[in-house]
C-alpha cells in the first residue's frame, strides 16, 4: 500500500463514494462530474472499490420497492428507537440510554427468552449490536441495563459475537460459571454433567465460578473446561480447532478424534433418532470427519463402511454392530 502523508480512512472513502452514488442516482452525470468522479477514483483503488460497492448497494435497493406504498418508515419501531437515541444525544442525556427499548423488526426483545428446538440453529440479534447464535436445544435469556449486558445460558450452547461497549461488560452466566467480555467472539456450552466449556475465537474473556470467584483470562484460540470444582486451566487450541468446534454453525458436527460412543452422544443433541451401540468395543472405535448434524443415519452408514461394521436402520434410529 502507498505511504502517503495522511491516509484517508475507509469510512471517509465510503462516505464520499456514497455521495457519488447519490449523484448518479439523480440522473446521468454531466461531463464535468464524470471527469471529477474519474479523477477522484483514480487516486486510490480503495476509492474505486468503495464507489463500486456504493453503486451495488444502490442497485440492491431495487428490493426496497417490494416494501410497497404502504410502508410507513416513520412509525416503524426502528425509527422510534433511532429518534429516541438522537433526542437523548442532543440533550446530552446519553447516560440515560438504558431506557432505549427494542430495535424492532425481527430483533429480539431483551427481556425475552430465545430458544432453539432440537436440530435447529438460530442467530439472534441483540439491541446493542451483538449477536448470539444458538446451537441445537438451547435456551438463553438476556437482561441488559445501563451497567451490564447479561445473558443467561439456561441450557445448550451458544456463540456470542459481542459488540464493543467498554462501559457495559457483556456477561454470560451458565449455572455457576461466569464469562465476561467487552468486545469479542466466544462460545459457551453447558454439558449434561454440569461442566461448562468456553472457547474464545477472538479477543479476550474472563471466566470465573460463583459470585466471588477469581477471574481467569482466556485469550483468543484458548479454551477452558470448567468443572464444578478445581482450578480453571486455559489450554491453547489452534484456529483450525476453533473452526471445528464451531462447525455446528454450518449444521455440521466435526468428529476429530471422538469415539463412536461420543459421536452418538453428539448426534443425540441434534436429533431424536438415536445411534445405538451395544458393544463397548464398537463404542470405543474412532471416526474422523465432518458430518451433517441432522443425518445420524448417514453418519452411521459412513462409519459402518469405513470401520467394517453393520448399520441396521430401526424405527427410532440406527444400530451399529460388528458385521
Amino acid at each position: 500500500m502507498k505511504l502517503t502523508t495522511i491516509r484517508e480512512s475507509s469510512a471517509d472513502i465510503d462516505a464520499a463514494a456514497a455521495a457519488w452514488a447519490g449523484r448518479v442516482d439523480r440522473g446521468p452525470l454531466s461531463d464535468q462530474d464524470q471527469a471529477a468522479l474519474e479523477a477522484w477514483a483514480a487516486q486510490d483503488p480503495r476509492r474505486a472499490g468503495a464507489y463500486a460497492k456504493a453503486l451495488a448497494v444502490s442497485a440492491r435497493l431495487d428490493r426496497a420497492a417490494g416494501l410497497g406504498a404502504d410502508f410507513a418508515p416513520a412509525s416503524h419501531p426502528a425509527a422510534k428507537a433511532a429518534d429516541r437515541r438522537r433526542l437523548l444525544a442532543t440533550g446530552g442525556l446519553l447516560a440515560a440510554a438504558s431506557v432505549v427499548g427494542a430495535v424492532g423488526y425481527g430483533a429480539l426483545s431483551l427481556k425475552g427468552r430465545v430458544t432453539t428446538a432440537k436440530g435447529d440453529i438460530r442467530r439472534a440479534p441483540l439491541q446493542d449490536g451483538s449477536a448470539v447464535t444458538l446451537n441445537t436445544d438451547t435456551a438463553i435469556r438476556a437482561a441488559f441495563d445501563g451497567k451490564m449486558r447479561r445473558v443467561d445460558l439456561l441450557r445448550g450452547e451458544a456463540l456470542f459475537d459481542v459488540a464493543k461497549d467498554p462501559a457495559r461488560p457483556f456477561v454470560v452466566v451458565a449455572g455457576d460459571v461466569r464469562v465476561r467480555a467487552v468486545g469479542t467472539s466466544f462460545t459457551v456450552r453447558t454439558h449434561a454433567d454440569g461442566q461448562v466449556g468456553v472457547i474464545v475465537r477472538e479477543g479476550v474473556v474472563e471466566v470465573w465460578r460463583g459470585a466471588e470467584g477469581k477471574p481467569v483470562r482466556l485469550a483468543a484460540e484458548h479454551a477452558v473446561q470448567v468443572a464444578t470444582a478445581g482450578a480453571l486451566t486455559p489450554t491453547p487450541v489452534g484456529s483450525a480447532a476453533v473452526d471445528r468446534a464451531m462447525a455446528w454453525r454450518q449444521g455440521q458436527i466435526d468428529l476429530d478424534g471422538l469415539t463412536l460412543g461420543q459421536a452418538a452422544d453428539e448426534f443425540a443433541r441434534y436429533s431424536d433418532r438415536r445411534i445405538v451401540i451395544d458393544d463397548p468395543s464398537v463404542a470405543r472405535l474412532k471416526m474422523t470427519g465432518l458430518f451433517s448434524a441432522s443425518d445420524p443415519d448417514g453418519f452411521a452408514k459412513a462409519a459402518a463402511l469405513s470401520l467394517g461394521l453393520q448399520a441396521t436402520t430401526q424405527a427410532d434410529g440406527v444400530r451399529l454392530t460388528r458385521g
Partner: protein
Amino acid sequence: MTLATQQRAIWLARNALPHEPALRAWLSRRPLAGLEVDDIVQETYAILAALPSVDHILNGRTYMFEVAKSVVLRSLRRSRIVAFEALAEAEALEPPSDAPSPETVAADRQELSRIAALIAGLPAKCREAFTLRKVHDLSQREVARRMGVSENTVEKHVGKGIGVLMNALGRGGNARFQASRNRTDRDPDQDQSEVDHDPREQRRH
C-alpha cells in the same frame, strides 16, 4: 482504475455484496500483518469492478474470497518488513467451503425487513426522501417537488442513505436484523409492544 458500470453494480449486488459479511469475518480471523480489513474489502470491490467480464464466474462467493486473498498476498509481498511466517500463513489461506450456512440463507430471506429497519433508522428528512426515491420509486426531481426542497438536498439525503446501508449491509457479523428460523419463547410478563415479531418469519412446526 476502471469505474464500475451500472450493469456491473447489479452483478456485484447479487454476487458480491451478500458475501461481504462472511468475507470480513474470514479476513478478521487471519493474520494480516497490519492490513485493515476495510482496505482489503475496498480493493476487492475495485478489482471485481474492473474485470473486463464476469461471465466466466460461476460462484461469486468463491471468486470474491480468492480476489481478497490475492489482495492480501500482494500487499504482504510488497511490504518488506513482513515476517516470512505471515506470508507463508497467508498463502496457505483456504477460502471456506461454498455451502451457505443457515445464517446466510436466513439473512437473505429477511433482507427486506432489514432494509426496512435500516431505512426507518435514518434521520427524519433523509428517511422521507429515501423512502420516496427507493420505495415509491420516484425520481429525485419528483421527490424534491413533493418535499418542497432543492434537488441538491434530495441528492444529499439519498447519498447519506446509501452510505448507511453500505455500512450495514457489509457488516453482517454484528448486524441486528438477521433472520431466524424457529420459534421465540417469551416470558408471559413481557411487554408485547417491545416485540415487533415479523409475521412473515417462517416457522418449522
